[in-house]
């Protein structure tokens, strides 16, 4: 069991949590202040507040998701990563998290810049469009890839800004942020060996999870 997968003591929802959420939760220091952008039904927020004693807040686009979260006692507002992060002051949080949402934003780079302004750290997980299955689908079928993780047809997908792990790393570099930690998860959710070269991550990682730090 890797350090990223160790069970989270005290949490009631570990068993059915998405793998990337467990990896993210283990990147967060206990007792810190966290904003989860695109928090969905609040799974990660609950994971963090139950297992890591975190002051966790959420923002979610769907009103139903928001209302469900608030009914569970979570501190969540309806909002859009593209437009509503601008309201938050600098350094309001220790961590700003964007899990599996970056590819659905209109302005991924601007969103990431806001995250690094609002939080000391940003944690981003995203599907890797450079995974070999996606490459082979495009190459041999000649059609837009549809996989288990990315199950939408091209015409109704909310995912409008796909990138590969290498693309993401390049953008982080352009923004001038530092990669504190990075993990590529294979299709079974296991991390690929850390010392593997980038091209291995980019080919065999189904998703990337990165802990970023603002450059001073």
């Amino acid at each position, binding site marked *: 069991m890797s350090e990223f997968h160790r069970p989270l003591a005290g949490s009631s929802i570990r068993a059915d949590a998405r793998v990337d959420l467990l990896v993210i939760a283990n990147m967060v220091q206990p007792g810190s202040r966290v904003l989860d952008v695109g928090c969905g039904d609040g799974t990660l927020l609950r994971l963090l507040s139950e297992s890591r004693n975190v002051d966790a807040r959420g923002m979610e686009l769907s009103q139903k998701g928001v209302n469900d979260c*608030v009914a569970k006692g979570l501190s969540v507002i309806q909002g859009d990563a593209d437009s509503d992060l601008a*309201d938050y002051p600098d350094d309001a*949080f220790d961590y700003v998290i964007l899990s599996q949402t970056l590819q659905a934003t209109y302005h991924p780079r601007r969103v990431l810049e806001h995250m690094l302004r609002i939080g000391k750290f940003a944690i981003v997980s995203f599907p890797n469009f450079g995974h070999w299955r996606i490459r082979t689908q495009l190459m041999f079928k000649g059609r837009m890839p549809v996989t288990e993780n990315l199950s939408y047809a091209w015409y109704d997908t909310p995912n409008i800004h796909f990138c590969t792990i290498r693309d993401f790393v390049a953008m982080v570099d352009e923004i001038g942020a530092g990669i504190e930690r990075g993990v590529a998860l294979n299709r079974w959710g296991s991390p690929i060996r850390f010392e593997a070269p980038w091209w291995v991550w980019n080919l065999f990682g189904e998703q990337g999870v990165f802990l970023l730090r603002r450059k001073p």
Partner: protein
Amino acid sequence: MTDGARVTGQIAAHNGLTVAQGEVESPHSLIVRFSQSDPLVMDSGVTLAPLSIAYQTYGQLNADKSNAVLICHALTGDQHVANVHPITGKPGWWDTMVGPGKPIDTDRFFVICSNVVGGCMGTTGPASLNPTTGQPYGLDLPVVTIRDMVRAQAKLVDYLGIDELFCVAGGSMGGMQVLQWAALFPQRVFSAMPIAAGARHSSQNIAFHEVGRQAIMADPDWEGGRYFNSGKRPVKGLAVARMAAHITYMSDEALHHKFGRKLQDRSAPTFSFDADFQIESYLRHQGSSFVERFDANSYLYVTRAMDYFDLAADYGGSLAQAFRGTRTRFCVVSFSSDWLFPTSDSRAIVHALNANGASVSFVDIETDKGHDAFLLDLPEFFATSRGFIDAAAKARGLPPAKDALRQG
């Protein structure tokens, strides 16, 4: 017979006095009286003394006085939140939200609600005696603001020996008071629920209020606010004011579903100005029943208080400044079909709170019930309220609900 003629005025229980005057003399509530030496300092630059505050409480205050919830009532509401109303005999205006096992659980919390300054259910208002004349104030009462109402409530909370309120909650004008509490006394408000409210009264809202006030003042029986001398009441004007306001509390969609163009007890139009349509009959009923319990001068004062409310203006034009450094936990609630305080008003509050990194939840409840939705039985509204209050209670170290204890 017109509705105005059917209305006998508010003269009933108190030997020829209005309901408002009766409540001043012998209120159906607890009452605290602050003497001349303990005046209310008002935004208009004057002081008000003596000051009476009529209030209701429910539940028990705990030993360390940490479980008090202050409910702030709306324009035409009063302190009778969760008991049968002494004048109308109807259930309390928020007994769906407040009571044993309800989201604001009177088995766990000590709930306080007081009649606002300028009101007509026992707190000092235009029907109270002006100490300098020995006559009811009428329009000699100083103009009241939302902040004046909140300062008066703070005097009551002080009198009850409570430093910090666990929660301050209210809808519409009550929500304005919640925001004012959070801005004025941030260290005294652990959690806050402004519901169907805004941080300022819009131009359109002021316009509707002005229509109502002009209707009252155009009624010859109003007599410049001194109607208590003649024994008459400006019931026609007050009823029209209520009718106009009541339209703003409902959505077009709900009106269409409820009434459409349906006729009232007839199969064809009468080619007259009788209440042919059901909606006309409904509004006339709303107007005539309202004047039985509400005072026309109070209506002028309390609508004015709402008009003057602009929280950002008090903080250099920045709403974010009003909540600077706040540690209060907020739950902002709006209703999708509310056009009096639209969702965008609530969103502006949320933006200002976010700008302070405040702890804030924001739910917009999908409903066609319009502004009055906050008074109605909406399961999603109660579920989110319960979730917020329970989480805040846990954070405050208050024990969980009895049901939760039984379950686990």
